[in-house]
């Protein structure tokens, strides 16, 4: 009884709230997390995306269509994420896309977005095999998946050793977060190990990873040539500190992009100077789009970040880049389906599938060098596969390499194999990309 009553009250409130907003707006629900252990990163990321959208709205929106968004706190929790998604997806004319920024929530939404026909982006994380757009038409692991990132990291280590062939016989320790996130790249690591001849030592760390002496003492004993840090949150900071404590030379460490933001390196103090990590965006405020945001958005007092000095931080730039990509997808969709019209989720999906952000176009958008070119297609929902590597100097990140990719061919084969297995299990017929537009 109580549940029904409360549900009705809730529905009434929702109805009241949604009537209040305008109709000619592109509605984007934002499944955010601003409390809990991931709050630091989350607030930066969403701050970046929302700031960019505010900037676009200030410039008149996407061909006149303004962007509207609404946040819902997921606390990085799968059931709350699902509840937020369900609550927000029908409001304001219907959600156009969703980006949960969490592997757990994304998994919970996989089946739902396919049923509801709303495209979901998993920008820089998520299930690597969902890059095969023929089998996952509604999921877009844009930019670079974990598999491609691992391949790129191996390529970088090869570069560091003086050539991929020099990796043969070397020992690589894989220190990973003992969860789905941490285990995701292992197939690629193993496959490349078989191909290139290096030895892999896998060392899991139980989350949250407050003390890592046993792991690093093991590393010390094994004396690997390189240590790949696939950690997240406090685990990254503790790893850097424990590495220094056990005397592991910093130039042997290579971090995944979730272990390479200011929130990870600053608390580690001296122990993180010289630490190299991957990133799929550049950082800093030296880009025209960042300066625009600073002047126009923060100048007018509409900035989303509570602490404006975080502008240009790693998580912030990621959010901005996500914002840019989404707006570009809207533009592409509008070019095909009607300029100045509000796009339906299916039309946005088409837009996401036909992205062609060339270097020239990125420069046009004021983000030259901020992120690599992204070209998606029906088969390839990833679009880039490139990362760049940055080093923490103690004061900021210095770019060590340009955007580079690893063995994309091999990764693509693995993607298609795994996606094929999934399709067979779930009895999904892969789309025929040749037939569609």
């Amino acid at each position, binding site marked *: 009884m109580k549940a029904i009553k409360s549900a009705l009250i809730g529905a009434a409130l929702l109805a009241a709230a949604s009537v209040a907003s305008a109709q000619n707006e592109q509605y984007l629900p934002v499944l955010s997390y*601003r*409390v*809990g*252990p991931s*709050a*630091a990163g*989350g*607030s930066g990321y969403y701050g970046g995306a929302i700031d960019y959208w505010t900037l676009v709205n200030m410039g008149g929106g996407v061909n006149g269509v303004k962007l509207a968004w609404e946040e819902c706190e997921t606390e990085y929790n799968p059931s709350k994420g699902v509840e937020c998604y369900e609550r927000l997806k029908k409001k304001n004319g219907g959600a156009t896309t969703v980006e949960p920024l969490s592997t757990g929530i994304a998994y919970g939404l996989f089946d739902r977005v396919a049923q509801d026909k709303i495209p979901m982006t998993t920008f820089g994380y998520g299930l690597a095999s969902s890059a095969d757009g023929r089998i996952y038409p509604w999921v877009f692991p844009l930019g670079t998946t974990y598999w491609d990132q691992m391949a790129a990291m191996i390529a970088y280590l090869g570069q560091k050793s003086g050539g991929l062939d020099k990796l043969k016989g070397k020992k690589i320790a894989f220190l990973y977060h*003992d969860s789905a996130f941490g285990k995701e790249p292992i197939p690629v690591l193993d496959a490349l190990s078989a191909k290139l001849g290096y030895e892999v030592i*896998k*060392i*899991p*760390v*139980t*989350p*949250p990873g*407050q*003390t890592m*002496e*046993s*792991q690093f*003492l*093991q590393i*010390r*004993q094994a004396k690997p040539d390189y240590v790949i840090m696939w950690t997240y*949150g*406090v685990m990254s*900071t*503790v790893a850097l*500190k424990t590495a*220094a*404590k*056990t*005397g592991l030379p910093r130039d042997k460490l290579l971090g995944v992009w979730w272990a390479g933001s*200011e*929130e*990870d390196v*600053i*608390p*580690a*103090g*001296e*122990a993180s100077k010289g630490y190299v990590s991957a990133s799929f965006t550049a950082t800093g405020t030296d880009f025209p789009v960042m300066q625009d945001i600073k002047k126009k958005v923060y100048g007018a007092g509409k900035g989303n970040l*509570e*602490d404006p000095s*975080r502008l240009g931080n790693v998580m912030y730039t990621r959010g901005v880049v996500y914002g840019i990509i989404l707006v570009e997808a809207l533009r592409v969709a509008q070019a095909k389906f009607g300029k100045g019209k509000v796009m339906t989720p299916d039309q946005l999906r088409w837009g996401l599938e036909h992205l062609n952000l060339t270097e020239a176009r990125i420069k046009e958008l004021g983000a030259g060098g901020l992120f690599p070119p992204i070209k998606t297609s029906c088969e390839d929902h990833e679009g880039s596969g490139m990362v760049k590597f940055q080093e923490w100097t103690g004061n900021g990140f210095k770019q060590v390499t340009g955007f580079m990719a690893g063995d994309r061919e091999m990764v693509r084969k693995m993607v298609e194999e795994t996606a094929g297995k999934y399709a067979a299990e779930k009895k999904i017929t892969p789309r025929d990309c040749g037939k569609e537009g």
Partner: protein
Amino acid sequence: MNFFFEVLVGGLLSGVMYSLVALGFVLIYKASGVFNFAQGAMVFFAALTYVGLLELGWPWWLSVPATLVVMVLVGLLTERFVLRPLVNQPQISLFMATIGLTFFIEGVAQLAWGANVRGLELGVQDEPIQWIMDSSGINLSKFDLMAAVVAAVLVTLLALFFSRTRIGRALRAVADDHQAALSVGIPLQYIWAIVWGVAGAVALVAGLLWGARNGVQYALTFVALKALPVLILGGFDSIPGAIVGGLIIGATEKLFEVYVGSRYLGGGTEGWFPYVLALLFLLVRPEGLFGEKIIRRI
């Protein structure tokens, strides 16, 4: 053999860090019979307040006492608004109330100081001590050693406090039997206020050390989970038990992970091993090493 000692020493020192958090639990349980799950949140809040004040420009010798005052205040407010209304309720209600308190404190902490991750510098670097490294090849970090010294001092102070001072004796009386303590004229509310205040101070020490080690961020609240097996091993109401339990848990957890967990079980055993160890221990000695033996009467 050296490697074994390294792992052992590393484990013992991280165990000391666990016992710092466990001490807060023990203090409160000893005096009021409440299992304060919010201790982890209090550690977080203490560390956050300290760095927050530092960021505002306060010098450290002002921030520390100020944070101490704040933590004591938190303890007093908790006692007044959460515990006093719940006097005489079953233990589980009090436990649930402290879990509610955890959410409350976490929300307030992040509301007041923001969600940024901050570093904490205590002046002692987390690096191996060179001469020990050179002479025996064993890795011993300066920071860990300092933490061990701080813990030893704290435990000694607390032990002296409880056994030598009048208030300490009153606390032990209250822990033994509230009614009897009241009947000999011990002011219960006042005593509880003191205890919660002291627990707040212990939370500050733990917060500073853990914050310097791991960075001041939300994940600090999870150190409470590491303290629970320590409490079981040592007994919920024993101060020396907290230290001994911490040392045992820290050492065995690391040794198990290195020698058994990663070799035969695929690693990642540190999450459950302390608990399983504590469980097995309890089967043999249900009150923990130093805990009070519970005599049940019908």
